[in-house]
């Protein structure tokens, strides 16, 4: 996030796009409600009538996957009415002329044809966002989990820069991270192109620094992303795989493909606290400790590093994960003997400028937000104040591209997926919480009243959902949440896991699979006798 969570409540216009905030980030939606109580305008852009739309001043039910067209339409209107911020544009950005020329063709009428939002509505949203004193954008996987996710994110950046709604208190572009430490493992360099602290592996000086510190020869070649790893397991060019605390057998799209990849591994190690679907494929399973049984830190979605503290001893037979990794490192002959997570943190901070001012002692009270470059630096509440990381902000010229797979005669419905409030990811943790299990024991698919009637489906009936890649059976719940022609499923349950239906079309830049849109057909299952 460029801003902090508490700042949201002081925004005067909150634009929520592709984020089911009340279910996925409950304590962020709380700040959105407060902003609303303080008089902010709340705009929710989402094809579904999610809970947040009930509080919204405007709900924009755009067509699935048409975000770029909608956002370009908004920007067209903003420029036409001179609602943009020329001072911000000239002082802080580049590439404006190209963007301006490109947006010519996205009149609200043209945008409307693609996104299904009436031109007047595009204009109204554009005016409210652009002319409010302090506008902010919140987005989640609804924006990024598309085969054109990077386009969506860049379009949002265009919009914020055009109007100068970034780099201020309560005003910016804020991705809400799904899992507790998604921010953290990126920060720690568990990515194929960067070392800890986002220092690129292709920079020779940076590489030298790490080679000296770790006393090892390091590669200057960007590594494989997860989808590439899976493909290479199948073609045999990757033979050994180590999976730490993740469950791709259930979480990744196109389950059959992933299972084949995992089974192709010559040697597969899984480190986890439960025997997950993925662990069942492994040659070695290493039982780690849960978060309550070890010390460390997490980084939340507002870049704040906070302490995790050991409350109870690890379950007999298990080891804290940092211990396991140190043991492996030592056996590999690496300098990885640490006596505590604090020592690991200090080594990391000494090598990463954005963390160099942090220590466990300083994190003790309330945590610190990076960048925090020195011991007397208070941390950074919001990013891009006065200057972007790269100097000037670059506008990108983005065209609307339709989703890879759209409904057709044979597969007439559009399937989309997401989270539920009581569960988390593949339920390895929440499925083992009796209270949460009781709250939400089984999956169901949401369908519109009109389609349910057409298919002869009543609440609780079972339907067979078929895509080009697989099929499953799920109970359905008709309602007014999803628009006609579509179906919504969560990805928490193994017994009805939409990932067997989804494709593997990836965003060409970020390699994010298209989790949000795929074409399916729906058949009523005969009643059991």
């Amino acid at each position, binding site marked *: 996030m460029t801003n902090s969570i508490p700042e949201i409540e002081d925004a005067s216009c909150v634009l929520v796009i592709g984020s089911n905030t009340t279910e996925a980030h409950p304590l962020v939606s709380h700040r959105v409600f407060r902003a609303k109580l303080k008089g902010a305008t709340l705009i929710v852009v989402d094809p579904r009538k999610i809970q947040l739309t009930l509080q919204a001043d405007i709900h924009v039910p755009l067509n699935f996957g048409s975000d770029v067209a909608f956002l370009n339409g908004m920007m067209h209107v903003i420029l036409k009415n001179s609602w943009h911020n020329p001072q911000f544009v000239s002082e802080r950005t580049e590439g404006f002329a190209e963007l301006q020329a490109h947006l010519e063709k996205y009149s609200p009428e043209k945008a409307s044809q693609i996104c299904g939002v009436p031109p007047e509505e595009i204009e109204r949203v554009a005016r409210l966002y652009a002319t409010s004193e302090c506008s902010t954008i919140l987005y989640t996987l609804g924006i990024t989990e598309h085969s054109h996710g990077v386009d969506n994110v860049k379009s949002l950046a265009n919009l914020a820069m055009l109007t100068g709604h970034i780099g201020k208190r309560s005003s910016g572009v804020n991705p809400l991270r799904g899992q507790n430490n998604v921010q953290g493992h990126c920060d720690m360099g568990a990515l194929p192109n960067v070392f800890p602290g986002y220092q690129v*592996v292709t920079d020779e000086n940076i590489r030298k620094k790490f080679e000296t510190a770790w006393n090892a020869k390091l590669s200057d070649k960007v590594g494989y992303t997860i989808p590439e790893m899976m493909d290479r397991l199948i073609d045999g060019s990757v033979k050994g795989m180590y999976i730490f605390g993740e469950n791709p057998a259930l979480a990744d799209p196109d389950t059959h493909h992933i299972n084949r990849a995992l089974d192709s591994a010559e040697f597969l190690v899984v480190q986890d606290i439960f025997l997950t679907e993925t662990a069942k494929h492994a040659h070695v399973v290493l039982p780690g400790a849960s978060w309550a049984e070890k010390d460390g830190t997490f980084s939340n979605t507002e870049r704040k590093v906070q302490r995790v503290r050991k409350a109870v001893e690890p379950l007999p037979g298990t080891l804290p994960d940092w211990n396991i990794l140190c043991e492996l490192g030592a056996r590999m002959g690496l300098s990885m003997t640490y006596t505590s997570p604090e020592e690991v943190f200090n080594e990391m901070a000494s090598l990463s400028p954005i963390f160099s001012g942090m220590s466990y002692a300083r994190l003790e009270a309330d945590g610190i937000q990076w960048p925090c470059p020195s011991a007397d630096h208070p941390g950074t509440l919001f990013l891009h104040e006065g200057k972007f990381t790269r100097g000037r902000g670059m506008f990108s010229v983005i065209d609307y591209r339709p989703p890879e797979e759209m409904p057709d005669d044979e597969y007439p419905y559009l399937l989309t997926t997401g989270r539920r409030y009581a569960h988390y990811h593949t339920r390895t943790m929440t499925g083992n919480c009796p209270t949460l299990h009781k709250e939400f024991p089984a999956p169901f698919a949401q369908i519109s009243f009109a389609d349910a009637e057409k298919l002869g489906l009543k609440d609780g009936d079972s339907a067979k959902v078929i895509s080009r890649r697989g099929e499953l059976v799920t109970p359905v719940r008709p309602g007014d949440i999803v628009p006609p022609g579509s179906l919504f499923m969560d990805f928490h349950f193994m017994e009805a896991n939409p990932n067997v239906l989804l494709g593997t079309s990836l965003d060409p830049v970020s390699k994010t699979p298209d989790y949000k849109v795929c074409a399916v057909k729906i058949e009523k299952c005969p009643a059991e006798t």
Partner: protein
Amino acid sequence: MDYRFVKTTCPYCGCGCQMLLEVLDGNLIGTMPHKTAPMNQGKLCIKGWNAHEFVRSPNRLTTPLVRKNGSLQEASWDEALDVTVSRLREIKEKHGGESVAFLSSARCTNEENYLLQKFCRAGFGTNNVDACARL
């Protein structure tokens, strides 16, 4: 009686709510919101309130497992760690470090993620480490 509250961070979503784990004689018995944390100010969602429940689930793994004759069998820590390193090292020597890949965890701590990428980069000379940040 040893009755304590331990301040920690919620293990679920990216909000990072601060919570107090309630510990009685070494057992985790409850979760409470932290009242003065600027982020959540005394509130938690339903997942957070029940975060302690999975920690002592009977489904937890309690021993390393090693595949022998096609099935996963209980093994000692020494055996499991030795097999892991010797097999990975063998693959590296035969096919190069590029033939090994690591998938890191959004659920584990920063320190553990740091250690994993260090193990990958320094141990195998490859940048084949990724995380499901994009997932």
